[in-house]
């Protein structure tokens, strides 16, 4: 028997996920234009793998296939993995990562809504630890021709020198570790564009457009992007002002790597993120802080994925300690106790 309310807003998980995919399209378009069309093949590989993996696990778990396959959440995970990965990653690496995200990070924890960790970030971290070389081969500035891209994706030989190049974040990290003035390198080399690597800054800008779509449709709240961008800008500004020779500028941090993708599409994953308004601010701010620390002092050039996973662990605690005040009550629930 159906009980009240008898009317429902025309919303669905499918619609939410569809909006996320839609909002990724500006970024993907910029990616195709500035980096290369190879990403389309990657997206295809990832989507097929995600749906296949999802169907496989659902079959094994004895769950109905249709609702879970049509909710598009697996596709979102797949696309996010592709957007984080090097565009010339071989097909099997992408497939492994996606399968890992869907099977291990999502379904071993109980499927949609149950995973404590962001599946895309679990896959990214697992792959960067397992295949550090492949995960750090990025195409040189100006991109590669499409047939070279496709050849690399389909498993072609990667021995040719000069095929790949250091990213801006790589250069920064190398500079910091070797004592070479990294910032000057970044400024002088046209390969790094005027902000975060040639072409990449436009991909970042396009992701902002996508983020605005998500904000306008209320698919995400402002809290996480604002706290993430604000904190990353603040901490990088502080150190850049203290020592502009060793630390990159805030604009560089915001425009390079996956910062904008993370701000609007990764940090904002509802399932594995904090849920209270205050909690969302704390969660996203801490991710930005940890990401900056890893970028500046860590072993890996990009730290957002690790930062997200680290903060995923803290979510239950953050949520518990930031419960909002209930209507008519003087204090928030946690205000009075412990």
């Amino acid at each position, binding site marked *: 028997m159906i009980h009240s309310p008898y009317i429902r807003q025309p919303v669905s998980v499918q619609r939410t996920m569809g909006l996320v995919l839609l909002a990724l399209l500006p970024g993907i378009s910029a990616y195709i234009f500035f980096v290369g069309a190879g990403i389309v093949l990657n997206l295809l590989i990832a989507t097929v793998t995600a749906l296949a993996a999802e169907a496989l696990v659902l079959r094994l778990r004895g769950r109905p296939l249709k609702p879970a396959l049509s909710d598009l959440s697996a596709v979102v995970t797949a696309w996010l993995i592709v957007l984080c990965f090097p565009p010339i990653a071989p097909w099997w690496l992408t497939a492994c990562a996606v399968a890992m995200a869907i099977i291990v990070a999502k379904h071993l924890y109980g499927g949609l809504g149950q995973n404590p960790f962001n599946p895309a970030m679990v896959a990214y971290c697992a792959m960067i630890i397992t295949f550090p070389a492949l995960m750090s081969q990025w195409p040189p500035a100006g991109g590669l021709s499409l047939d070279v891209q496709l050849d690399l994706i389909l498993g072609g030989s990667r021995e040719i020198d000069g095929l790949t190049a250091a990213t801006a974040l790589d250069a920064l990290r190398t500079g910091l570790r070797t004592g070479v003035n990294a910032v000057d390198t970044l400024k002088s080399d046209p390969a790094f564009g005027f902000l975060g690597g040639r072409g990449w800054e436009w991909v970042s800008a396009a992701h902002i457009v996508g983020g605005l779509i998500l904000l306008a449709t209320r698919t995400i709240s402002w809290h996480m992007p604002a706290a993430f961008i604000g904190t990353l800008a603040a901490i990088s500004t502080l150190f850049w002002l203290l020592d502009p020779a060793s630390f990159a500028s805030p604009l560089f941090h915001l425009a390079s790597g996956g910062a904008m993708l993370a701000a609007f599409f990764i940090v904002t994953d509802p399932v594995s993120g904090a849920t209270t308004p205050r909690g969302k601010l704390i969660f996203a701010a801490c991710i930005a802080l940890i990401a900056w620390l890893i970028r500046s002092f860590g072993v890996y050039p990009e730290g957002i994925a690790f930062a997200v996973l680290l903060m995923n662990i803290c979510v239950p605690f953050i949520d518990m300690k930031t419960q909002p005040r209930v*209507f008519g009550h003087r204090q928030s629930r946690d205000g009075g106790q412990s």
Partner: protein
Amino acid sequence: MISRLFSFHGGLKLDDHKDISAATPIRPAPLSKRLIVPLHQGGRQPARVIVSVGQQVAKGEIIAVADGLFSSAVHAPSSGSVSDIGPYPVAHPSGLSADCVVIETDGEERWIEHQPFDLEHASREQALAWLRDCGVVGLGGAAFPSHVKLGRGSGVDTLILNGAECEPWITCDDRLMRERAVDILSGARILAQLLGARELIVGIEDNKPEAIAAMRAAAAEIDAGLRVQPVPALYPMGGEKQLIRTLTGKEIPFGKIGFDFGVQCFNVGTAYAVHRAIRHGEPLLSRIVTLTGNVSNAGNWEALIGTPLDELLALAQPKVDTDRHLLGGPMMGFALPQLDVPLVKAGNCIIAASPRLLPAPPAELPCIRCTACASACPAELQPFELYWFSRARNFDKARDYQLFDCIECGCCAYVCPSHIPLVDYFRFAKSEIRARDQEQAAADQARDRFEFRNFRQEREKEEKAAKLAAKAAETRAKLAADNAAKPNETANETVADASPNAAPAASPGAPADDARQALIAAALERARQRQTSATASSPATAADEQPPAAS
């Protein structure tokens, strides 16, 4: 007068569907041949029936009197004869039956003698008793007896008249305000007088401009010294707590009532009923009902309490594909299991539903913690957390996260992209917690009773022992006196009494007292036995705090 409005968190802008029933004036519903009047019209206790089968009743005659503090009288809505008193199916989500008085109407509408209440020369208590005997209850939905709500006379500064009517489809208050504004305000002034309220605000959602205009005109006409305040059309604005918050900025938590904050809130329909009761001496016999939804002749009808809902709905000409009927609005109402149930005082709206008009929600998917529910919740709860706790039967945690502050308005379920029937989970959790509390209370009571029984037995034993000791002492004294009188017999008695059983009466006794001594010894032995058996049969003593199982 312009006054600041406050806002409450969340809420929904809903498609109101009010136009289809709000356009036509209120029409009188034809008299039904048979009126089934439930004795329980709201409040906590049903009224006590005072008529018998076969008795002739006049319109407005009391057929059941208020029974208890939270009860109010029930009247014959029309003249006729009582044909039956007994359980009939009533409007309830589970299709329960309840005691009703059935009246075969004679069509004469013969009124009982009645006159206006002389409010100016009566005490407050008399006025409240009058309202109770006129069966005036809240017509906004809860049907809480109005005289109880008016109960304590002082401490209320502000009277709020609730004309928000925030649920979609319902327009009975809208029409009432448009057509009978002067009478509503007259009732409001009576309420304000009985409460001693200095300020009177009428809150009306701004999607009812005609009602606002009519009420303003009426306020100017009778110079009621009140404020008609449009409020944003934001569901659940008509919730008492939300309206009070919007108009005064005061937040009333769960377990508190407006009174505690110097505010009291009445529905406009209730004010109208108060006016009829005081100024015309008419008890509450009818109400305005919106008949709408999948019908071709939607509108509002004034119908007698007890009118069968199927007869009523037929007036609106439901379309053929109607498959369900809702009593109340789509957000908080419920589907009637059957339509041949009587109209009650709380019945404000019947919506004929069709699969096209109110489609069944899509299948439930897992929660993705998107927090849309938290953004929509007017009680500022975290519904998804409550959902996880309720699902896991983690009721302590659910209560800890203020489950009972949930007003079941349905905003969370409305916005949920996973189509989770959140309110159902909360109703379930609340009823489980209540049942558990009741069980716990019963167990506590049983334990208290058991512990008191032990205490009482102990006390009786002590008293008995004390009594015996006193008696023994008395005996001894008597013996001593006797012995003093016959000193020569002492030697013999001492030898005879050397048995080890002569416990307390160690002193020598006369042969005449032997029987008594034996009696005392036997009684003590019995007491001792009872004590050992009591200890053996009850391992759960005061030392063990667990309540005895199944006691």
